[in-house]
């Protein structure tokens, strides 16, 4: 999409998001906050899926690990909420650094299956190891911290906190994909051999991108734990990974903003549709099929194409 369209579009989107607490009722505000948390996961996952062509079906692992990493020291050991956030992020980062050593050796469906297995092992652990994780009951009572004297228990303050994190993460990731490193990742996706001939150690870049992607997902896990003040094994389950992967594909892999927008819209849609029918996953499936039929490269890419058609030149 030309700058003429997307700069105003992003500006309007951010403006709208910043005005949400003054425009919409409480319920909608919470929904959009949740949507922005998923948008962060979508962008983090897009680094892997869109820029490296590695579809992960285990990203819930890093999401959930960060949540549990926050919840356990805070609720059991009485640590401060911020310290807990640090532990949560560290947990996700360490898990990514270790699992990444193995995962980046796989491609395509092998990558998909190994990440799926990794995620499900952790989910199994969270369900069975009840003394630590609380099993199916999860861990309730996660406190929210204060920031510059504002308590994040205050709903609007929490919304703006999520908004700020979302904007910062989005800006960092946009800069990242526009940087030379982002171009290197695209090069690796297009042709590993060509990049090797240029002297690149592809594995190193893949590892770095995997870790970054997992870390960003961990940030969302921390926000979600604060949001719900609760963490349960669902946050590690593969179905969450699948939903976020669909989010990336629906929005348009390799566009960052597409998955971010899809993250917000799908959370909102899920809640609206759940009021009407219980078959949300079926609706999601239909959406997915329709996208594959009419916009196989994602909705954002479709819009970009339509806008390009309307312009007489090119």
């Amino acid at each position, binding site marked *: 999409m030309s700058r003429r369209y997307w700069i105003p579009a992003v500006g309007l989107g951010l403006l709208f998001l910043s005005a949400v607490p003054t425009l919409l009722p409480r319920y909608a505000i919470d929904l959009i906050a949740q949507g922005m948390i998923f948008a962060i996961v979508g962008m983090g996952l897009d680094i892997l899926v869109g820029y490296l062509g590695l579809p992960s079906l285990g990203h819930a692992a890093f999401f959930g690990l960060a949540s549990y990493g926050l919840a356990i020291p805070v609720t059991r050991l009485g640590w401060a909420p911020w310290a807990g956030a640090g532990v949560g992020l560290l947990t996700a980062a360490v898990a990514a650094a270790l699992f990444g050593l193995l995962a980046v050796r796989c491609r395509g469906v092998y990558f998909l299956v190994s990440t799926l297995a990794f995620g499900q092992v952790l989910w199994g652990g969270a369900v069975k190891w009840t003394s630590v994780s609380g099993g199916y009951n999860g861990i309730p009572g996660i406190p929210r911290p204060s920031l510059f004297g504002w308590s994040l228990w205050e709903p609007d303050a929490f919304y703006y906190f999520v908004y700020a994190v979302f904007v910062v993460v989005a800006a960092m990731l946009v800069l990242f994909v526009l940087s*030379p490193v982002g*171009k*290197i990742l*695209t*090069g690796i996706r*297009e*042709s590993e*051999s*060509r*990049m*090797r*001939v*240029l*002297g*690149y*150690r*592809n594995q190193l870049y893949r590892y770095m991108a995997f870790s970054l992607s997992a870390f960003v997902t961990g940030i969302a896990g921390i926000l979600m734990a604060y949001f719900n003040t609760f963490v349960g094994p669902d946050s590690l389950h593969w179905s969450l990974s699948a939903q976020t992967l669909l989010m990336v594909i629906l929005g348009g892999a390799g566009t960052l903003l597409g998955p971010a927008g899809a993250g917000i819209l799908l959370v909102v849609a899920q809640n609206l549709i759940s009021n009407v029918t219980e078959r949300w996953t079926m609706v999601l499936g239909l959406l997915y099929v329709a996208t594959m039929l009419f916009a196989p490269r994602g909705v954002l890419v479709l819009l970009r194409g339509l806008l390009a058609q309307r312009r007489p030149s090119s």
Partner: protein
Amino acid sequence: MAAVQLVLQAQDVHTYYGHSHVLQGVSLQILEGQIVALLGRNGVGKTTFVRSVIGFTPPLRGRISLFGRDVTRLSPERRARLGLGLIPQGRRVFRSLTVEENIEVAARGEGGTSLQDLMEIFPNLNERLRVRAGKLSGGEQQMVAIARGLRTTPRLLLMDEPSEGLAPLLVQKLTELIRQIRADGVSILLVEQNLPLALEVADFVYIMERGRVVYQGLPEQLARDLQAQSAFLGI
């Protein structure tokens, strides 16, 4: 060692694809500053030889040295870092990157032939720097691939059939370009099917047939040797 350095020395290289014995003892050498042409029909193992030098299909037997160093067991990326460049067959550009990104990604953060210098060599790419390489014409893509190969500042550049599918006018341009590259101190292995081009620029010529080197000599020699031309090149 003598004053003239060997940039590439392949000794009795045997390379296999699975069980098929593709290269059956190829020996070839390139001196510093030389343009060496490797000729032969389709499927005689020219590209396999290039892949062996690059390191994608390492030889099972034999030895490959670059710049006086044995690289037979080195990975492609290590070889590239020693100063080996490749312009692959068939205009392999990064289609979703722009022309500029295609070239700059080759710089790997180091120096090298600057983008400005390259634009003097390829003036018609200059106005297309921000266009995605996938949208360029075939000839332009080939220029991008060559510019990318030069951006790495190779000491030895492997060019795999650069003239394939180019219009005669562009082939003429390519000829000048190859000379210019050599004048900048780069040695070249030119793998070609285009005999006139090879005879025009090369200092030394090898011909391959069924995985072996069957002819080697000076280009003037081959130009006169119509028998060799018809036997090995089908001309």
